[in-house]
C-alpha cells in the first residue's frame, strides 16, 4: 500500500472532474428553476389560453401579421369571445406586457432564443420615452 497517496489524489481529482458540471453551476449560481416572468396585473386572461401562448405565441403573432398586413383584418376575437385590436406594440406591449424586459426577454434569454427580430422594427412603447425629443 505504498501507492496510497497517489491513488487517493487521483481519486479526488477524478471525482472533482466528474462532478465539475454540478459544482460549476453551484458557483455560477445557476439552478434548474425556470425564468421568473412578470405577468400583467391589469388583465387576467391573454388572447389565448396560457398553455397555448407559452407554446405557440409565435404562430399567433405570425397569423396576426398576415391578417393585418395582407388581409387588412384588424381585430382578433379571442377564445373567450372578447375582441382585441391586432398589434404587437399597440395591444400586447402597450396594454398588458408593459415591460418587455421582464416578460419577453426573461424567457427568451433563459431558453437562449437569440431572435426573433420583431423588436428591430416594432417599437417597445417604453423606448419612446428615452428617444430624442
Amino acid at each position, binding site marked *: 500500500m505504498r501507492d496510497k497517496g497517489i491513488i487517493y489524489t487521483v481519486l479526488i481529482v477524478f471525482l472533482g472532474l466528474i462532478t465539475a458540471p454540478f459544482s460549476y453551476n453551484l458557483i455560477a449560481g445557476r439552478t434548474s428553476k425556470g425564468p421568473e416572468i412578470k405577468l400583467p396585473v391589469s388583465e387576467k386572461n391573454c388572447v389565448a389560453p396560457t398553455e397555448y401562448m407559452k407554446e405557440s405565441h409565435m404562430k399567433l403573432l405570425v397569423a396576426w401579421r398576415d391578417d393585418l398586413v395582407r388581409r*387588412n383584418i384588424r381585430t382578433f376575437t379571442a377564445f373567450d*369571445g372578447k375582441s382585441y385590436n391586432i398589434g404587437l406594440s399597440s395591444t400586447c406591449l*402597450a396594454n398588458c406586457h408593459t415591460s418587455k424586459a421582464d416578460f419577453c426577454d426573461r424567457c427568451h434569454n433563459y431558453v437562449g432564443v437569440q431572435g426573433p427580430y420583431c423588436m428591430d*422594427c416594432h417599437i417597445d412603447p417604453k423606448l*419612446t420615452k428615452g428617444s430624442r*425629443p
Partner: protein
Amino acid sequence: MIISRKTFLRATGFSLLVAAGKKLGVVFADAAQNAAFAPSRALTAGRWAMLVDISKCLEKEDCTKCIQACDRSHNVPEFTEPAHQVKWIWKASFENVFPSQQHDYVMDRLKEKPVLALCNHCSEPPCVRVCPTQATWKRADGIVMMDWHRCIGCRYCMAACPYGSRSFNWLDPRPHIAKLNPDFPTRTKGVVEKCNFCEERLAKGQLPACVEACPQKAMVFGDLDDPNSQVRELLRSRYTIQRKPELGTKPEIFYIV
C-alpha cells in the same frame, strides 16, 4: 331536524336564484368589458386617389408641414447624405416631377418651383410586377401596399418605379428618427419603403397625415369609384395632369396646375 317539504322547496328555489344571479353578473361583466372595445370605423373606397393643387401649394412655397406630418407618423428617418435619404413624400422641381411637360419656356409661375411628389399608387404598378417575393402588391382599394416582413431588399421595385418613389434603407434607420411613434413600426437596414397612403390611418377612420396637415388644403383625398366624391368633382371641373402618363402606369395621383 326534520325538513318539511315546503322548506326544502323554498331552499332549493332560493339557491337556484342565487346561482342564476351569479351567472348573470359574469355575463354582464363580460359584456361591459367587450363594450369598452370599440372597433374604429374604417374609411373604405373602391379606389383611393389624391389630387394635388400645385398653385395652392405654391402659395406657401417653403411649407413642409405635410412632409413633417408624414415623417413623424411613419417613423421616416432623416439622413443628410443624399444617397441614404428615405422619402415618402417630398418636393422636387416642376421640371423633375413632370419631365414630359418640360420645355425651354415653362411659365414663370412653375419654372423650377417645388412640386409635391409621392408614390402614385399606380393602377398598373410596375413595382408589383417585378417583386420576386410578393412583398409589394395592389390592394383591392388601389393602395400599393408593402409587407416589410417579406421584403428581401433586392431593389427590383426601385429599378422598376419610374417615379423614384421607393427608398432603400442602407443603414439602420432607428438612430436617425428624431421622435419615435410607437404606433407604427420602423424599418430595418436592407428593406425598401415608400408611401402607404396612410392605410393604417384609413383603418382608424382618419385621412392621410399629409392631407390633414396641409394648411392650404392643397391635397384632396377620395374615392375614384364614387362619382360624387370631391376628387371626381374636381377631376370633372378642372384640368388635371399626371406624372409620366405615357408609361401606362395609370397613376392615382392627379395634379391641378
